[in-house]
């Protein structure tokens, strides 16, 4: 209500040097820590109120882990997350439980994310009851209103999840998150499991809700074309690190990281005159257990290869550098990313499907 800070002054969410390592236990009794999966390895970004930040990257690069750590579903190894200046990692117990309503999540799997033994009314109404936002007598009216908001039939309130399609189930999941009046929602591949025709409907529901309620989204996806349409800014992750972050227009027009260039080249483009040539990344993603020294992308980097594998890429870890307003990228040689270089690295074929799926 009363918001003294002018728009954009304090970010809604402030993430600094967030690290999440999963220890790998070993030894005779499995008690000693022998290594760690570096799932998220020093990620920082701000999220303004009302904005959508897209987060893309290959499978296993740590997108979901980042989301779950923000949501306090996993303990962070180090780093900080602030919600309007409040240190999220310092909150415990009942205070944490009540604070959770501000930060919600929608999961990828519309089947696994709904309790098969509860009705839609119980599923959607559970949060407001737990948060003390409604009484049991008002619950049904509230749930009906929420169902209408996400485009579901209000009379289906007593139905069970198995009586709905995937897209409808995802709407139920959205209604459940909305029910506790969140400020921000982590959308972890919310449409990846849906048919293409249903995807755009669900994306539209999300956009409409954002507009109506002023929601802030962290939209995780491995599909750059989905992210392009819904995001204000896009972050690209590779092996636990944010390698580029920019406004959506800038990122698609002039990417400043060779990994982003390769991802963009894999988006299917229906218009042949605008079709980009495809850059196929060779090799496998290196193991997150023992990430390579220097630049993590170096082993697959077409630009580094073109520049004759400079020593710097293998020894020195690139930091995020500014490239114009709001655009940062972590590459030593961003300036070498000329159209000619991209052209030369591309294969002739332009029919590449998503290289990321």
């Amino acid at each position, binding site marked *: 209500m009363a918001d003294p800070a002018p728009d954009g002054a304090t970010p809604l969410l402030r993430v600094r040097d967030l690290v999440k390592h999963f220890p790998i236990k070993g030894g005779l009794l499995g008690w000693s820590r022998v290594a760690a999966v570096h799932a998220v390895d020093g990620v920082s970004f701000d999220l303004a109120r009302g904005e959508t930040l897209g987060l893309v990257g290959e499978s296993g690069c740590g997108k979901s882990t980042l989301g779950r750590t923000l*949501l306090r*579903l996993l303990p962070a190894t180090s780093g900080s997350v602030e919600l309007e200046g409040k240190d999220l990692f310092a909150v415990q117990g009942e205070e944490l*439980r*009540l604070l*959770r*309503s501000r*930060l*919600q*999540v929608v*999961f990828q*799997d519309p*089947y*696994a*994310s*709904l*309790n*098969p*033994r*509860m*009705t839609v*009314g*119980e599923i959607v109404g*559970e*949060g407001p009851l*737990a*948060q003390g936002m409604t009484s*049991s*007598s008002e619950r*049904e009216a509230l749930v009906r209103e929420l169902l209408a908001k996400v485009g579901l039939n209000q009379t289906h309130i*007593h*139905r*069970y999840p*198995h*009586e709905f399609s995937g897209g409808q189930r995802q709407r139920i*999941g959205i209604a*459940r*998150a909305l*029910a*506790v009046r969140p400020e921000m929602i982590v959308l972890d591949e919310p449409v990846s499991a849906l048919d293409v025709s249903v995807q755009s409907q669900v994306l539209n529901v999300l956009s409409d809700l954002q507009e109506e309620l002023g929601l802030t989204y962290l939209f995780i996806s491995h599909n750059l074309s989905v992210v392009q349409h819904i995001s204000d800014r896009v972050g690209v992750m590779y092996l636990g690190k944010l390698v580029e972050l920019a406004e959506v227009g800038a990122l698609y027009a002039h990417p400043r990281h060779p990994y982003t260039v390769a991802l963009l080249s894999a988006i299917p483009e229906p218009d042949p005159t605008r079709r980009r040539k495809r850059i196929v990344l060779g090799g496998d993603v290196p193991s997150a257990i023992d990430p390579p020294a220097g630049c993590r992308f170096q082993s697959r980097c077409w630009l580094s290869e073109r520049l004759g594998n400079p020593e710097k890429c293998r020894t020195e870890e690139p930091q995020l550098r500014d490239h114009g307003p709001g655009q940062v990228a972590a590459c030593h040689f961003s300036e070498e990313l000329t159209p000619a270089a991209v052209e030369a690295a591309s294969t002739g074929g332009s029919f590449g499907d998503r290289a990321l799926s």
Partner: protein
Amino acid sequence: MAAETLAPAEAERAEQIVAGEHEGLVRMAVRRFTRHRLAMLGLVTLVTIIAIAALAPVLLPMDPITPDYENLGMPPSAAHLLGGDLSGRDVLARVIYGTRVSLIAGLGSVVVFVSIGTAVGLIAGSLGGVADQVLMRITDIFLSIPPLLLIIVFISIVGAGLGSVIAVIGLVYWPQTARLVRGQLLGLREAEFVTASRVIGVREREIVVRHMIPNIFGPLTVVATFGVASAILLEAALSFLGLGVKPPTPSLGEMIASARTPSVLQEQPWVWLPAGIVIALIVMSVNFVGDGLRDALDPKASRRG
């Protein structure tokens, strides 16, 4: 109606919700169960057997205990439809009463082991930590004792009889149930819908009660059903070995035991064969019903149903 206060309307609505919940899921389970042919066959067989065992003594009074020396080892006749056993007792009466004993032993020991196993599994799985470690090590110890040893020691201390049989079978089978319940709970802890309710701020205790426990009823019912079959077989085996119910109480296992005499095995099949057939029928039917329940109660199977 419309002018009424909120409270009764609310109660009515709450009732509707509860009623709707059960109807929806139960109806779906029934629909899927009835589609399962063998399960239906098993259910009909089982109901028939139970009905006969329960009603026959009332409808046609027969005496399974008192010997009739005219009927000593006699083949089936009009007076004794399945003939007489080696003590001259009516085989039909003994099969029917023996079936009762078997069913009581089977169901009784399932109640015992499902209760113990569920309690242990629930405590271990929902508390975790030290309680979990201690309870699971105790479970491991029970699993590492050979069942027959456990049974013989128990019976020799407590003495034979239907009650001891029920108790000892319960004692043999509870660790599996405990492990199942604990495993289910650990799996559910990671389930996305559980994570989702944690995110909306549901208290941990309510998550266990509302989201986790209701979702183990399906697997538990299946285990309990198959458990009835195992328990009936074990009871028969114990009676066969003389560790079961006390004679002259009829028991299917004890009737089959009379076939240990070669002449009976070869020349007087009416003494032991009916009991064998009834046990086979019960065990097979129970297993078919278990299969049907497994399909009917698995919510994941309903994906696009």
